[in-house]
Each structure stands twice: as structure tokens, then as C-alpha cells.
């Protein structure tokens, strides 16, 4: 019997090594696997490269992960989200390496990794500072730059529902980076609001087939996040 459901955070994050590349889903707080991030901090893992859209806010979650010295490098599109105090301090002190990637290029680099595409040409960023050091090519009279796939050791994602096969259903705008990241890592761990019986998820509703998912853990996000969809 296939059963990807785990009961403890220790099981969920078992085997994550120092120096790993970790994709972290979510856009703002929506679809961000907060409990997995907290548990990752607890493991004391070091020297991570993390890839996500923002660079954390305040002193919780991703910001705390960086504040605790777990992160060597961050790949993101928008480090200046609300209250990026930890990021700005570490970056200014030279304790954190930053790779800025346009948001769509970030998503596509992860998608490419998931799909076995090593690199792709895109017009995004052509002729700008972010094209520096990248191969460029004229195709049909337009300039494109070569961007490489972003493979990862680990993806931490959040979904609304899961079954024991690891099939994931997203809610609202909570898909965002999650389905792409779930498919691009060697180890994919999903934090979900609800676990349902196998067969209860309509096949058309499954946003991430369980084939991409290794472990699922149920986390209650609290009443304001669990209201039924209007």
C-alpha cells in the first residue's frame, strides 16, 4: 500500500542535508508551508540555497531561517517585501548571497527542471543588467537570453487537501509556485490542511499528482484559513 502520510515533522524532514537546495512554495503567506519552514529551522541544517519569490518579512518563517544562519544563498525575484529586516541586514553584512531572477523566469527555471529541460531562451531580461554573463541569441529578429533549469534537492509546498498517494489539491490563489516546485525536487514534502480518503479527490481537481510528492503532513493553519470556500 502506498502511504506518503507522515505524523511528525522529524519524519517529514528526515534526510535533509547541509548544503541542500530547497524550493519553498507560496506567494506572501498564501500557499507558504509555514510549519515546514519552522521545522526546518529546528533541524539546525546549514548552508542551504533557498529559492522562493520573496525574502521573508519580520523575524518569522523564511526570515527566521536566514536569521538562524541556515541559509548561504537566496534565489528570489522580490527581496523587498514588507519588513525585509533580516534579509537586508544579512545582505548588507555580506552574509547572504543573492541571485535576483525575474518572477516568471524563476517559475520557468523550476518548471524546466521538472520537465527535464536543461535551459531555455527567454526575452525576459534581455538587454538588462540581469542578462549579464548569460548567453544571448537573436531568434526571428528578437533578442533572447539563456536561462538554466533550477533543480533542487528538496521542495517544501503547501496545499489544501491531500490523499495517501500524495495527490494535492490547491485552494484559491494558493497554487502559485507550489505545483511547479513540487515537480522539480528529489524530495517533495507537502504541508496540507486536510487529508482525505483515497478516491475522494476528483481527478480533475488534482493540481499535483502524487507521483511528484514523497511525504505529506497535516497541519492545521487555524480557523481563519480553514473557512469553507465561499
Amino acid at each position, binding site marked *: 500500500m502506498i502511504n506518503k502520510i507522515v505524523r511528525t515533522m522529524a519524519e517529514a524532514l528526515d534526510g535533509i542535508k547541509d548544503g541542500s537546495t530547497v524550493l519553498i512554495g507560496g506567494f*506572501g503567506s498564501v500557499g507558504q508551508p509555514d510549519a515546514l519552514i519552522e521545522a526546518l529551522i529546528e533541524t539546525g541544517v546549514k548552508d542551504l540555497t533557498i529559492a522562493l519569490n520573496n525574502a521573508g518579512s519580520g523575524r518569522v518563517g523564511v526570515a527566521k531561517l536566514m536569521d538562524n544562519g541556515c541559509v548561504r544563498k537566496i534565489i528570489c525575484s522580490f527581496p*523587498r517585501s514588507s519588513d525585509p529586516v533580516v534579509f537586508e541586514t544579512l545582505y548588507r553584512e555580506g552574509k547572504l548571497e543573492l541571485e535576483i531572477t*525575474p518572477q516568471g523566469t524563476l517559475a520557468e527555471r523550476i518548471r524546466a527542471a521538472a520537465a527535464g529541460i536543461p535551459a531555455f531562451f527567454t526575452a525576459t531580461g534581455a538587454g538588462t543588467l540581469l542578462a549579464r554573463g548569460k548567453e544571448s541569441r537573436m531568434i526571428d529578429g528578437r533578442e533572447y537570453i539563456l536561462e538554466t533549469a533550477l533543480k533542487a534537492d528538496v521542495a517544501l509546498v503547501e496545499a489544501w487537501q491531500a490523499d495517501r498517494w500524495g495527490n494535492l489539491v490547491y*485552494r*484559491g*490563489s494558493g*497554487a502559485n509556485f507550489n505545483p511547479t516546485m513540487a515537480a522539480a525536487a528529489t524530495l517533495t514534502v507537502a504541508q496540507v490542511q486536510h487529508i482525505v480518503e483515497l478516491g475522494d479527490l476528483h481527478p480533475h481537481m488534482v493540481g499535483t499528482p502524487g507521483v511528484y510528492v514523497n511525504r505529506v503532513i497535516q497541519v492545521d493553519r487555524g480557523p481563519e*484559513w480553514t473557512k469553507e*470556500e465561499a
Partner: protein
Amino acid sequence: MTPFTRDQMAHRAADDIPEGWCVNLGIGIPTLVANHVPSTREVVFQSENGVIGMGPAPAKGTEDLWNINAGKQLITLVKGASFVGHADSFAMIRGGHIDLCVLGGFEVAENGDLANWATGENDTAPAVGGAMDLAAGAKRLWVIMDHTTKDGRPKLLEKCVYPLTGLKCVTRIYTNLATIDVVDGKGFVVRDMAPGLSFDELQAKTAAKLHQAH
């Protein structure tokens, strides 16, 4: 002379959006554009975090925390709305399926170059977000911004000084003083101006040659 307010700038841009377009609105004044499109005109608002068919902000007590826009504000959905993930959302943008993107700007050059993400090569932690993807991928790019900086320096230039977001991508600019088209091979063409403003006064606040529309 009375400059246009933020809402007036947004209203003027909204007036020029025809029914049926799929439109992505950037953070800041561009977000206000949606408030000025009458509900009788069906325009589809896309947000790059994967929302197609975004509606106005929710009434108090009806918020769904799972539904936000690219500015991380809570939103509602209109009938006919759909969700996709980031990869598909940016495929939609990069693939030329967005009729119009409206962004804010630091500078626009007369060839349509846009600078709106970093204020220098040594910017501490520049933040690009989805601006470069939108600049490269949207069918049309309109910019809403003040005509000059707070200390009076022109933001419409022969050539951008700040790092570029996209090359030759801007097609129209709505400022607090005028609406200006960027015409290939010609440059800035003034469509109209704030009441009481003369063409020469507008030219004096612009660091590139302006052309009369007629």
C-alpha cells in the same frame, strides 16, 4: 494649471481599455485603474500570482485569505474567474496573451525603454518581481507615473539613466500632466494635456523632444 490626480490618471487609462481585453495591473497607481472601468464593460484582470478574473477588494467579513493579488492584497473573483500556478501564469504573460500591462515607472525613454526596478547598479538588493516578464511579454505596456520626480527632474528622457526593465516596450504614458504615445521611429507624441498647460510648458518638463499629435 491643475495636474491630474492619481485617480484621474487611473481613470484616463481605464477609459482607453476596450471591452474584452485581458489586463495586468502593476502595484501602486496602476492598481487603481480597475476601480475606473465601469462594470458594464467586461475587462478581464489578470494577476501574475495566477488569478484570471480578479474583482474588487472584499467587503469586511467576506475575506478569503487564500485569494490575493500580486500586491498581496485580498481580492474577490468575478464570475468566469480561474486560477493557475505561477509557471502557467507567466507562460500566459511571456506568450503574449495579455493585451495590456499597466506599470509604474522611474523613467521612460523616447524609444520606449522602461526603467522601473532599480535606481542604480549598486542598488542594495534590487527587487524586480514580475516587471521584466510583463515588459517583455505583454502585447502593450502603458506606464502611469508623475511627469517629473518630486524634486522636478524629468522622467521622460531621450535615454534612461536607471537600469532598464525592458527595451522598447512602453507604448503609452499617462502622467499627471499629459497622455503621451511612444511612436516607433518618432518618439513621444502628446495626445492631450492637463487643462491650462501649454505645449511649451510640458516640453520644458520633458528631457526629450515632444511631438504634437496633429
